[in-house]
């Protein structure tokens, strides 16, 4: 069986498992779904690695036999293609879904007897498959179908704990807002189709038509682009369309949160890459718009994350912030590309993609560790959690690695990608230099926020002594998943060549040719020595900076004397030495309140109104659906529209 066949069979064969999973309950269902999803993930990883390494594409079409006289169904084939850009994203999907599936084996045990595991299984598998579908389809119509499937299944996962009012509300909100975004995409697609009355929406066709449209009526083209961008932006939780995310992501089971934050919000980014590099040429104003969205997003998201006291909510806000970096890189590259500065455009895109994969790694790891804490303690409140490192050393270590990665501490992976983004923005000068320094400032805010996240949960002593007596490390599958991702975080930080190779092969598809713009000429230090591995003195230095102290402690085992905590000579009971999460960085928040005021304006006025608007819209829709007369009228309108479209 060659890889093309596997690619061909992957979606239909895994769909077969859905009813089987739905049949079972409890443990069996858990094992089946995770077994299937692990297999699927491994296959996805193999496929994408193959594509990225060989530079070839996997391609197939499902032939659909329909009456060709109906123009709307005249796309004839359902085209799937795994090119290197898709492969890069499927690789991300594969890695994260592998980890979260392994993790899920243990984690879903929480819900035995409380919730329907089969229901989870169906949605979980469907979620992965639909994301895979979104990435591999080569047809806008199919894209939308998978997109909606993805939204639907993830919405059920968000409100999986059906007895929790909060979860139901979050799922509802998430669904409504996502639906609004999807409508925008659909409208844009319809406009494209209708204006051209050609009903083939294969990406290649779309691309060529788009370019034509740009030449002929740039206003309409830009409007379509705007609609698509906004539709995607809602799903990617760009500020000000982000308000649903901090509610939705924390409410899902933690391994699903990892997928949601690690992968799902990258789906629109994937489409944006295609949109701006394949379907259209980047223009300066689009570059400015996108990078501005990026900066506002990273600024607002991260500053809000700084003041969160719910562990998963904090992580969710950071997802917004980190997506901002990715979008900033995309926008910067767009501007630079339009200005003709291809080398820097390449570096910016490199940084954007590098950060994307890094974010997928460390954010899903962080969600998994937060999930482990929930698994053992049932708590997400940073005011109450404390001192878990003693009981869950492995979780603590992986959380530390992830925290340092997202904080951009060398030599972990977050540092490299952020560094590349800074280089491109700073060297570009102009408005991008401003954006770059905002990003630089925000990275220290991120660091501060993760000092809070890590230290409140894991260090110090337990808040209520004795309350954690039965606490122990999480079961093997969960820690395995964590260790896997942590190892990748370190690997991608130190052996930079591997991800860079993967990314360059993905970028080459977008028209920025690697051969032409070698890194060497821009002196990205660690690659300039040779292509084999890490030889840069910088990275040797970094590794020494981390390794030497650890070795010193582990091997030399310096003598220590033990003391009680110095609290002015009195014996203070352990639990009372409590520093709740909300007290961190109070002064900073007070002084930089202007930033928060601006953030609040964006966050609440724009964010909440857009949410409210969409909710209102759906309420109305609901009322219409409930009203038989309106329903009949609507059906008639739709039928008429279809008739008109089909061309009768």
């Amino acid at each position, binding site marked *: 069986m060659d890889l093309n066949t596997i690619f061909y069979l992957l979606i239909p064969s895994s769909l077969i498992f859905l009813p089987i999973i739905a049949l079972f309950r409890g443990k069996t269902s858990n094992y089946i779904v995770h077994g299937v999803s692990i297999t699927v993930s491994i296959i996805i990883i193999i496929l994408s690695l193959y594509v990225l390494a060989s530079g070839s594409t996997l391609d197939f079409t499902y032939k659909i036999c329909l009456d060709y006289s109906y123009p709307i169904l005249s796309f004839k084939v359902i085209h799937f293609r795994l090119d290197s850009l898709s492969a890069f994203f499927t690789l991300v999907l594969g890695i994260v879904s592998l980890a979260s599936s392994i993790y899920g084996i243990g984690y879903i045990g929480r819900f035995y007897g409380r919730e329907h595991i089969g229901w989870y299984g169906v949605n979980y598998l469907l979620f992965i498959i639909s994301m895979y579908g979104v990435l591999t389809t080569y047809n806008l119509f199919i894209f939308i179908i998978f997109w909606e499937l993805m939204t639907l299944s993830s919405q059920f996962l968000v409100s999986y704990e059906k007895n929790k009012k909060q979860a139901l509300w979050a799922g509802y909100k998430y669904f409504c807002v996502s639906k609004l975004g999807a409508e925008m995409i659909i409208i844009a697609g319809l406009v494209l189709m209708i204006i051209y009355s050609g009903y083939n929406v294969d990406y290649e066709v779309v691309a060529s038509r788009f370019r034509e449209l740009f030449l002929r009526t740039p206003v309409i083209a830009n409007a379509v682009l705007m609609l698509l961008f906004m539709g995607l932006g809602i799903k990617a939780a760009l500020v000000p369309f982000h308000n649903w995310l901090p509610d939705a992501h924390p409410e899902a089971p933690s391994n699903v949160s990892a997928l949601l934050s690690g992968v799902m919000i990258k789906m629109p980014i994937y489409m944006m890459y295609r949109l701006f590099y394949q379907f259209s040429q980047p223009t300066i104003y689009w570059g400015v718009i996108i990078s501005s969205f990026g900066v506002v997003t990273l600024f607002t998201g991260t500053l809000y994350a700084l003041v969160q006291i719910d562990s998963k909510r904090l992580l969710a806000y950071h997802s917004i912030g980190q997506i901002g970096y990715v979008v900033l890189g995309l926008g910067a590259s767009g501007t630079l590309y339009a200005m003709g500065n291809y080398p820097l455009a390449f570096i910016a895109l490199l940084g954007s993609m590098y950060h994307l994969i890094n974010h997928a790694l460390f954010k899903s790891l962080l969600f998994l560790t937060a999930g482990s804490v929930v698994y053992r303690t049932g708590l997400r409140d940073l005011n109450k959690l404390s001192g878990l490192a003693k009981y869950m050393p492995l979780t603590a270590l992986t959380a530390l690695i992830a925290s340092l990665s997202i904080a951009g501490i060398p030599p972990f992976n977050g540092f490299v990608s952020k560094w590349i983004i800074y280089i491109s923005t700073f060297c570009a000068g102009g408005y991008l230099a401003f954006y770059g320094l905002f990003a630089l400032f925000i990275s220290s805010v991120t660091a501060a926020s993760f000092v809070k996240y890590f230290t409140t949960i894991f260090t110090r002593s337990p808040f209520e002594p004795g309350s954690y007596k039965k606490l122990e490390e999480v079961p093997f599958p969960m820690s395995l998943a964590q260790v896997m991702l942590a190892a990748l975080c370190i690997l991608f930080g130190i052996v930079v060549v591997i991800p860079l190779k993967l990314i360059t092969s993905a970028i080459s598809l977008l028209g920025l040719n690697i051969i032409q713009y070698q890194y060497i000429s821009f002196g990205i230090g660690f690659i300039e020595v040779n292509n084999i591995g890490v030889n840069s003195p910088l990275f040797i230095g970094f590794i020494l900076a981390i390794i030497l102290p650890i070795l010193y402690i582990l091997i030399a085992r310096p003598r220590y004397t033990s003391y009680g905590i110095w609290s002015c000579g009195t014996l203070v009971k352990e639990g009372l030495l409590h520093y709740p999460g909300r*007290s*961190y960085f109070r002064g900073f928040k007070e002084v930089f309140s202007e930033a928060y005021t601006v953030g609040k304006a964006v966050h609440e006025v724009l964010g909440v109104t857009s949410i409210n608007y969409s909710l209102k819209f759906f309420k109305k829709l609901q009322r219409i659906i409930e009203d038989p007369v309106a329903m009949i009228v609507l059906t008639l309108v739709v039928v008429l529209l279809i008739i008109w479209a089909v061309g009768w």
Partner: protein
Amino acid sequence: MQSSATKLVEELGRFGIVEWIDSHTLIVHVDRSKLRDIAKYLHWGIGGYFSVSIGSDERPLDNSFHVYHVFSLDHLGVYVVVDIRVSPGYLHVPSITPIIPGANWHEREVMDYFGIMFDDHPEPKRLILPYNWPKGVYPLRKDYPYNKKVYIEEASDEPEHDSRFAGKYTIIPIGPYHPALHEPEYFELYVDGERIVGARYKGFMVHRGMEKIAESRMTINQIPFLAERICGICGYTHNVAYCQAVENVAGIDVPERAHYIRSIMLEIERIHSHMLWLGIAFHFLGFDTGFMITWRLREKVMDLAEMLTGNRKTYGLNLIGGVRRDIDLSKALKVKKVLRDLRKDYVDYMEKILGLKEIIYRTRGVGVLDYGEARKYSVLGPTARASGIDTDVRKYHPYAAYRHVDFKIPVYKDGDVLSRILVRHEEIIESINIIEQLLDNLPRTPIMAEEIHVPEHRIGVGVTEAPRGEDIHFVITSRDNKIYRWRPRAPSYNNIPALLVMLKDQHLADAPIIIASIDPCFSCTDHVLIIDVRTGSRKQVGLRELSRRGLG
């Protein structure tokens, strides 16, 4: 003046039997039912303030306990002692704390030491004795020998923390060993980030048993030296207050020159104390150079004290009836010269230092104690004057040589730390003026009274204005050159409870300077403590051992 005093006597006659114990002290023997009325009348009615409560075991004399509340009437220059007789069969007295919150500690102290219960006290907990002190043992009762050893129970869980805040907010312990406190006291701050949301105070950790030692072991002329050691900074003012109390009882005619010398030394002590405080305040504000400057200037004052008395700090100058050393002309001239230079230097430096932005920024509007709160807690001295209360014992109850000098009392309305700095700053300059006036007019009389005879079982009240406020010593005399009851009350005793009001809603960074701003003298406040509160150990502590530790 005289007529208003007689009017006062008439007014007080409504509450009980009134008699003069000396020319400016009234005693009112009231019934327990009238106690609250008279307290309300004296503190809130005619503008006096509550000063101190004293418990006394007088069973050997009239088979009863007594509780004395002392009120000061500044505008009349009169102290009123309200005396309540408590029969040993029913040890209950109505509490005046609901009327005057400042009486809280005083009543709890009596509770601890004598077992007298105060009805309706809002917080009837132990104040001074440690929680593991055996029940029913009251160390200041006369049937408790000063060298008796008590068996201390092993430490158990004390409800240590304020349940409103503990667990919800971070506890920042300030003390007992903290760089911001140079004495062992304990402030527990509950903070949210950098903001203080609440505070708790635990004091009385300095292990001395001065009252008991003085009452049982020392003679009347030895106690001045003990009184001087109540405080390491303002010891002399305790010394003078004690001597005045005894002199008032005995009606001793202290020679004028002795009065002048006492006043001079009191003012020198005030200057050095305020300068020391300023230095510490600057240190807490992070301005160490200011600390060095003020302490360098203070050193000149210390040299003066050394020259005049033979020691930098413990002057050892007083005996009942006068002083032990004279100031001769050459010394007087030298003092004047030093003070002239000091004033020039000091004013110049302070003008510059008080112009520094950080100092002003960190003290203005910080630790505010408004007039109403200040009256409630009857705070004293510079703390009161910074809150707009015009009070000064030197002016309104003149003692020693203060009726012969002219000086003004700085009063500020804001009640913040800056006001307290400015009050002290101006007082330093006033003190230099006072010393110069006194030295110019030093009368030529002997320095020690000839005739000294102390009557038995009489109440005496001696008051001085210590650098921190009114310092009051209450004495009941005994035969054989002994004292029956001695209760010194340092000003910090009244000022410290007000700290909890000042600390609320302030920044953590300002906690040290707020605590320091009342110039708290913890050892003054705690002098009376008898027991070692170091918990967790089984030990027997005797007074003799403690006294050796404390006095040696």
